[in-house]
């Protein structure tokens, strides 16, 4: 029996200048920390990595300020005390491959056998153990996670052509113009420690090309170390026949990209439904109301919750409210009499007044929705078999930024509302600046 390989995990989080499509939510929260299913986006990555036997260390790599991750690191370290978790800050955007290469000494410290690299902006069931088992059986340097999608969607992603028998990757191309294969790359990679030699070779190759063209690389942002995993490194591995693809199991694994703000609604749903089957502990029922001043019916039981749902224990829910499915309710949220919430995320300290209805929406931190109001986004595509469809075909959820106030009795449908706005009249299909 083979000994357990020693592992490291790297999560590539980028920085504040990327992820503009995540506005207005990224205006008040770094995208990697945006709560989905009650937990920061990259919590789910860390949890998946930390539970692998042999995981020695998890490194979060990006170019956000160090302080951004302080609280997150403290909290998550307490949750996973046996795996050190650190943040490594790039001082300039180096690209996904460049960041990895820049911190090669840190990543290689302790001489891990295998290195997982995960992009932050995805939601997935992270079938990492299955991927590792597959990886250990082939002779390549790297395994990428692939998923089959509807052929109309392939052109938006990195397309993978693999040998159906050996799963060796024959061709890898970003956003192909013509149809090559229905398999795409999920942005989840597993590398042997030799990977840094490949990255170095890719950097040398790129530099040689630039010199040939007479371009001085010191004028390029990120300099000579700026390199993309997806384009330069993977194509080099492919041509060296050292890249293999592990394919997500249909119906068991899920995966989607989180690019726009509205994609957090399907991501939230996927995680909650996943936990419903795998970790019901992460779901929750409404707590008993604890403040007598919001209810005079406290003895009449608790609010109706249709699972899956995540409700923070500090949220206060009137017993006549009806929540779920696919709802995440954040800390200190106050939900009034006769309120309905479905397929939505309510962030910290939100207040929803009596008889209002929240559907397919994200309600930003400290926002208030008046009585008898309706906040509604368009529901996602209902092609449930192919969850990546939800990932790409972005439903136009309604998103309220931080500290937005919605007046009584109005309807806000398919709108994006920037932070600190007072909305006093019904709106639809608008971006409210």
């Amino acid at each position, binding site marked *: 029996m083979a000994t357990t390989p020693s592992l490291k995990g790297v999560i590539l989080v980028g920085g504040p200048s990327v992820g503009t499509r995540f506005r207005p939510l990224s205006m008040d929260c770094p995208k990697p920390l945006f709560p989905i299913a009650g937990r920061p986006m990259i919590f789910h990555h860390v949890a998946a990595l930390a539970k692998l036997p042999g995981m020695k260390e998890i490194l979060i790599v990006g170019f956000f300020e160090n302080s951004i991750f302080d609280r997150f690191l403290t909290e998550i370290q307490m949750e996973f005390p046996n795996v050190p978790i650190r943040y490594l800050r790039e001082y300039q955007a180096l690209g996904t491959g460049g960041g990895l290469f820049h911190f090669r000494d840190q990543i290689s410290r302790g001489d891990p056998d295998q290195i997982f690299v995960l992009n932050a902006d995805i939601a997935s069931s992270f079938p990492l153990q299955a991927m590792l088992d597959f990886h250990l059986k082939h002779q390549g340097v790297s395994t990428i996670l692939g998923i089959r999608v509807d052929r109309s969607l392939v052109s938006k992603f990195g397309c993978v052509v693999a040998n159906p028998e050996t799963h060796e990757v024959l061709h890898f191309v970003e956003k192909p113009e013509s149809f090559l294969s229905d398999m795409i790359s999920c942005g989840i990679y597993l590398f042997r420690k030799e990977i840094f030699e490949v990255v170095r070779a890719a950097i040398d190759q790129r530099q040689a090309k630039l010199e040939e063209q007479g371009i001085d690389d010191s004028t390029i942002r990120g300099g000579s170390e700026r390199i993309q995993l997806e384009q330069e490194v993977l194509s080099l591995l492919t041509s060296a026949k050292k890249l293999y693809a592990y394919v997500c199991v249909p119906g068991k694994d899920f995966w989607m990209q989180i690019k726009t703000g509205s994609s957090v609604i399907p991501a939230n749903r996927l995680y909650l439904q996943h936990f419903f089957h795998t970790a019901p502990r992460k779901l929750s029922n409404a707590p008993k109301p604890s403040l007598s001043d919001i209810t005079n019916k406290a003895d009449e039981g608790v609010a109706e919750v249709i699972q899956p749902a995540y409700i923070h224990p500090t949220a206060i829910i009137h017993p006549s409210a009806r929540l779920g499915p696919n709802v995440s309710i954040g800390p200190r949220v106050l939900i009034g009499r006769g309120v*309905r919430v479905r397929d939505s995320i309510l962030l910290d300290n939100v207040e929803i007044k009596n008889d209002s209805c929240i559907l397919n929406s994200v309600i930003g931190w400290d926002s208030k929705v008046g009585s008898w109001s*309706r906040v*509604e986004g368009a529901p996602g595509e209902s092609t449930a078999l192919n969850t990546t469809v939800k990932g790409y075909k972005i439903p136009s959820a309604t998103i309220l930024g931080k500290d937005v106030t919605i007046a009584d009795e109005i309807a806000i*449908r398919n709108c994006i509302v920037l932070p600190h706005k007072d909305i006093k009249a019904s709106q639809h299909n608008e971006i409210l600046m």
Partner: protein
Amino acid sequence: MKALILVGGFGTRLRPLTLTLPKPLVEFANRPMILHQIEALVKAGVTDIVLAVNYRPEIMANFMKKYSEEYKVNITFSIESEPLGTAGPLALARDVLAKDSEPFFVLNSDVICDFPFHEMAAFHKAHGGEGTILVTKVDDPSKYGVVVNKGTSSVIERFVEKPTEFVSNKINAGIYIFNPSILNRIEPRPTSIEKEIFPAMARDSQLHTMDLPNFWMDVGQPKDYLTGTGLYLTSLSKKEPGRLASGPGITGFVLIHPSAKIGQDCKIGPNVVIGPDVVLGDGVRMSKTVILEGAQIRDHAWLQNTIVGWHSTVGRWARLEGVSVLGDDVHVADEVYINGGCVLPHKSVSSNIAEPSIIM
């Protein structure tokens, strides 16, 4: 005295409600529209009423028999084999209208107002002309045909169709009183009283106006039906305030049938009419809305500018607005949004109707 009510055709403008009941029987403020007129006519001493219709009035006939007994008034139908316009039916009903020399009333069935028939009769007899038409003042006369008086007198000088510059803001309210001699001007063929008969009478200086002091509305289509409901309730608040609902949760003028059941924490009004046996759940909010008999509005629904047809149901957290009309026995699922939806009878609506449209 006698009266003729121009009921006309199928009331297509008030569909989908008129797919279930003939327009005169559709309730307005919890009573069939035509009863508002019959009652006011009877009060003014009318003993014979002719309903001019151009479809077979079987459903109407039963109701009218009942009203005939209830109000002790003789109600007959004058059935046109082809539509005769607004004047032809007068000639067709000549037997009743010309049976004595007393003047008779003619009114359009779509019109709702305070019906000052007593005053009209007195005014008409006093000026001695052949006809008197009730006129109402409008803010924007350019959309209507207006009536121009001779100087400050009540005599009509001429009619101007859609005036481009201001000549008058008085429009024909669709309620008249005539001497039987008018019948000599009309033949039983399709004729417009407004376009053919009135101009001739005006030329002879035989037509007078009487100003209608209070509200007036043609309630022949849903939007105006709802506006008219508000005007009617405002008028009712002055005449018979005791008939309007009051108490916590009621705002503005609201008429609630005694058999209706209202849940906890509702907020109703202004300008709402709730019909017999209607059931409202908890936390329902409605304004500028009419709920017809036997409908059920479930918890936390929100309705504005909506007519809910007989025995329809509206689900929890549904939101209806923008002049939505549900026909008879329509069912709106929980959490559905309807904006300007017009839903034909016996349909179920389970997804949003975001923009005004007709659900067949």
